[in-house]
């Protein structure tokens, strides 16, 4: 087990190293780039050259990469050129991370809390109206562009009915103590209940919007996997033992059906990160996704580089954790 983890961890480091090189070379081989980003409208050729020299961008690529790696090993990944000029790119990631974590966590909770029970029900009632409706609506949910969903959600819940805030993470003027950067948790930790409640209200719409895709996936995989398990001989054995429906559902069906769901949930972290780019943009959610979107548009390469690498690292790491969890909960792997 430990071996498995170490092995995967080493693999991960390798993958990330290669990725860092690819991203570095790729970013630098594109037009535009930091210089144009920094200069803006008032640029001239002379200023351009001066800047390139000042930044060492006139050096050959391998030299630049080596310098980058040297600095990277010291934890210095360069500073933002556009998103938050002058700010350490890694700091940007770190300050933005809690927001994205909070959002993704709630989205995942929603996706799981809805996806698994509905998936189970749909599988149990395969072919009925309930099944068809849920399947189709999950597909529709995936196909509706996030900004459209978000617009509707905001329009009705925030503007028309005034139930929830439109965007942002916290009401203006609310003087809340920050501990972890996860606002809801902070509110709870410091017992500033109004702050926690306020943060929670801000979370609802974006996390619902972000949850659509993971929900659909969790729902579908649960349904498929429950259908598979229902066909399994051991469920028939359990039935033959005369066990109660509850025991069969919980101990025999769901427990086994959850195994593939666990892996899927890990893979959903990728979807969450991708989705965060859109969701955070439309909800002015100051998270990693929004920084990514800004980085893309403003060609802030140092920030992009850090964020892409970090996203990859998180993704790979989470999946590593998921695999380990899986191995822990599946005795067939655990007891090898």
């Amino acid at each position: 087990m430990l071996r498995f983890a170490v092995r995967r961890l080493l693999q991960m480091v390798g993958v990330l190293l290669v990725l860092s090189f690819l991203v570095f070379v790729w970013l630098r081989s594109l037009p535009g780039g930091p210089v144009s980003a920094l200069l803006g409208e008032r640029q001239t050729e002379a200023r351009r050259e001066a800047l390139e020299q000042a930044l060492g961008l006139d050096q050959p690529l391998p030299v630049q990469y080596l310098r980058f790696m040297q600095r990277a090993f010291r934890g210095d990944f360069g500073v933002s050129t556009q998103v938050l000029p002058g700010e350490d790119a890694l700091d940007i990631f770190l300050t933005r991370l809690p927001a994205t974590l909070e959002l993704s966590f709630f989205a995942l909770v929603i996706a799981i809390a809805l996806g698994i029970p509905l998936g189970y029900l749909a599988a149990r009632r395969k072919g009925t109206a309930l099944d068809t409706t849920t399947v189709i609506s999950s597909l529709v949910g995936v196909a509706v562009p996030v900004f459209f969903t978000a617009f509707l959600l905001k329009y009705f819940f925030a503007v028309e009915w005034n139930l929830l805030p439109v965007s942002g993470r916290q009401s203006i003027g609310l003087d809340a103590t920050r501990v972890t950067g996860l606002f809801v948790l902070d509110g709870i930790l410091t017992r500033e209940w109004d702050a926690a409640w306020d943060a929670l209200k801000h979370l609802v719409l974006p996390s619902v919007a972000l949850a659509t895709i993971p929900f659909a996936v969790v729902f579908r995989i649960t349904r498929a996997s429950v259908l598979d398990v229902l066909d399994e001989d051991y469920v028939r054995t359990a039935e033959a033992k005369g066990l109660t429906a509850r025991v069969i559902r919980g101990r025999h069906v769901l427990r086994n059906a959850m195994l593939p769901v666990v892996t899927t949930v890990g893979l959903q972290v990728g979807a969450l990160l991708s989705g965060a780019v859109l969701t955070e943009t439309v909800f002015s959610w100051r998270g990693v996704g929004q920084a990514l979107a800004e980085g893309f548009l403003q060609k802030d390469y140092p920030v992009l580089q850090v964020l892409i690498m970090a996203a990859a690292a998180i993704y790979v790491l989470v999946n590593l954790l998921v695999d380990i969890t899986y191995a822990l909960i599946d005795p067939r792997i655990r007891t090898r």
Partner: protein
Amino acid sequence: MTSETPQPPPQRTSYADRRKQRLDALAAASADEEGGVSLILSAWRRLRRNPVFLVGLAITVTFVVLALVAPWLAPYDPAARPLLDDIRPQSNPVPGPEPGHPLGGDDKGRDLLSRLLVGSQQTLMVGVLATLFGLLGGVTLGTIAGAFAGWADSLVMRIVDVMLSIPSLLLAFTIAALASSPSQWTLIVAIATVQVPIFARLLRGSMLGQRASDHVLAARSLGVKPHAIVFRHMLPNALGPVIVQATLVLAVAIIDAAALSFLGLGNPDDRRPEWGQMLGAAQPYLGQEPHLAFYPAACIIVVALGFTLMGESLREALDPKTRR
């Protein structure tokens, strides 16, 4: 084939006699001299009765046909701006329906209906080409990995690992965002790239399955040349799940294209409309003129649904577990 004349109880007869007996019986059993029914055909026969598949198929076919005939069907050139003079940025930014323009125009005075119709062409093209390129790349990599074990396999799978380590849409964003001159090809390439590792891994998996299968072993033992084994036996059989996946990916590709366009990473040239792009362009009007976003969104949803329904039922039909 009723045994009018009861056969004598079996006894030791000559080989020739018995062979003749068997032949007679079998010839009668399979009297039809027609050619056989391939797996695909028999899957189709099953699918033909599956309402989910039929709905998906109907949607898909409708839109494909629409895409093909759209240029003739569309009342206006999608790039022409017949309603331009009606536009006033404040009072009338988006011309409403009027005779000859049942859905009105867009914010550049172009006929919305025509754009929607012709949009099916571009949208499907982006979807199909992205999927095709993704498939091509994935199949190439997957074939290399699956056909040659050893270092070629390891190398390919490491490449795939690297590609997979970036969340898919994020990778697409990156590619599209960093393109030097954005066009619909950027979009296609971005989406295709994302699909490559997925197809590659899928294909490799099923190629490995094929590799270990008895019929490939049989071909080997027959002395069939290695390349023929790969291309005649392994690849065609391994391709099944990949094709099914491709149908599903088509839907995803169309949705992803919309997401990219939303982020402003799509094709800036909108003379040949594409739904994702129309949707992205409708963003500023969400508040005042939501129909501008609604129509393309609805089209995307329906088409994506069509492909997904088709893909899912195909998957089910080809899945040996559900086959009875």
